[in-house]
Structures are given as structure tokens and as C-alpha cells.
């Protein structure tokens, strides 16, 4: 039997999402994509001025039987967080493509470094509290 789904939403929820959406649009995102048919790879240009490339063979969601014309018909979706192939009716998120390009372990290291470098009020407070207890344990020198 067909489900008659309910719509669950409030005006406040919509307004919050709209405000967050505008802020999110300022984050780094893709601004262009090009299929390099000679090298069989996609080149993605970012709003930061940087760019990266992903080999076609790594994109398993694209059918192996796809024509070169269909593979080349790719576009950046609004806000630049995803790519979409209209003819093939499939897509990839740019964040996932970055992981494919860098490799999962390199991507995780980068994210870890970025996360660790973030300074927040909570982290500063925790550091002060830890300092009252004597701070980090002193290392014992070994000859």
C-alpha cells in the first residue's frame, strides 16, 4: 500500500535553515568541473582558487557503459557541494571526491589537523581547568 507521508516542519525551523544555508554558501565549494578525456579524469576547481582531479576509474557510480559524451556532461549543482551528470542521472558530493583524490587516510589526517587547530571557548576553559590540577604530567627523562 502506498504511504501517505506527513510533512513535519515549522516556520521557525524553515527560517533557521534558511539563515544557516546563506552562511554555508560562503564555505569553500566547487565552482567548475571539466572532464579531461585525454587523461580520463575530472578536474574540479574550487572557490578557494585551488583545484583537484579525480580519475574516472575511481568513480564507481558512473556506468562503465557510459559514452564519452555522457561522461563529459557533468555540472556543478547550485552552491557547489555536489556534481551531477544529467544524462547518467547520478552524482557525487564534492567532499567525497576530495577523499577519493587524497585517499581516505590522507583526508582523515587533514581533517584531524584542522579539527585539532580549532580554538574554542570550551577548549580554552578545559585547558585552564586542567592547569589548576597541575597541567600535563611531567615527562620522566630517560638516559
Amino acid at each position: 500500500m502506498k504511504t501517505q507521508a506527513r510533512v513535519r516542519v515549522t516556520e521557525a525551523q524553515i527560517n533557521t535553515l534558511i539563515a544557516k544555508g546563506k552562511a554555508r554558501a560562503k564555505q569553500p565549494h566547487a565552482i567548475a568541473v571539466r572532464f579531461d578525456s585525454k587523461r580520463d579524469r575530472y578536474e574540479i576547481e574550487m572557490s578557494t582558487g585551488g583545484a583537484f582531479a579525480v580519475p574516472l576509474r575511481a568513480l564507481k557510480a558512473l556506468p562503465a557503459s557510459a559514452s564519452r559524451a555522457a561522461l563529459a556532461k557533468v555540472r556543478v549543482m547550485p552552491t557547489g557541494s555536489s556534481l551531477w551528470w544529467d544524462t547518467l542521472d547520478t552524482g557525487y558530493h564534492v567532499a567525497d571526491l576530495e577523499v577519493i583524490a587524497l585517499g581516505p587516510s590522507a583526508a582523515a589526517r587533514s581533517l584531524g589537523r584542522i579539527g585539532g587547530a580549532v580554538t574554542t571557548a570550551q577548549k580554552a576553559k578545559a585547558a585552564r581547568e586542567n592547569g589548576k590540577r597541575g597541567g600535563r604530567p611531567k615527562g620522566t627523562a630517560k638516559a
Partner: protein
Amino acid sequence: MGTIQSRGFALKIFPKDHEPVHAHVEFDKGVLIIGFSDDEVTPLEIRGTVRAPDVKKALFAAAVVYDAVLAEWKKMQR
């Protein structure tokens, strides 16, 4: 494959995407992400600019293709 049409809206489902079940609806300057669970549709995220009336229209369009989106999601996550 990844797109389900409903009342003039195209709901896009990405392969190997993260839970919860969701679809992306494109607008001129933004994307609305709609969640599908427990027989309900709800807005999860907006990226860029989407007008409030468009959010509501897209949600009602999504509600009538609930089953189709769930079926497509299963197919796309294999």
C-alpha cells in the same frame, strides 16, 4: 536512476550517500535536503538560498513520492 519527479520538483538521490534517507532538491541559487523517515518528510538542510514557500511546496511534493524515494535510496546505496 537517481532522480524522482514530483509536482515539478526533481528529487535527487546520490549513490553511497550517508544516512538518514534523504533527497536533494535543486533551486536556482540553492539546494534543499529533505529527510524521509517514519512516514514523515522533514527539511534537514538548506545550502545557499531557497525561499520559504518553495521549501513548503517541495516538502508536499516529496510526501507523495515517499515510497518511491525509499525504494530508490535502497537501489542507490547497493
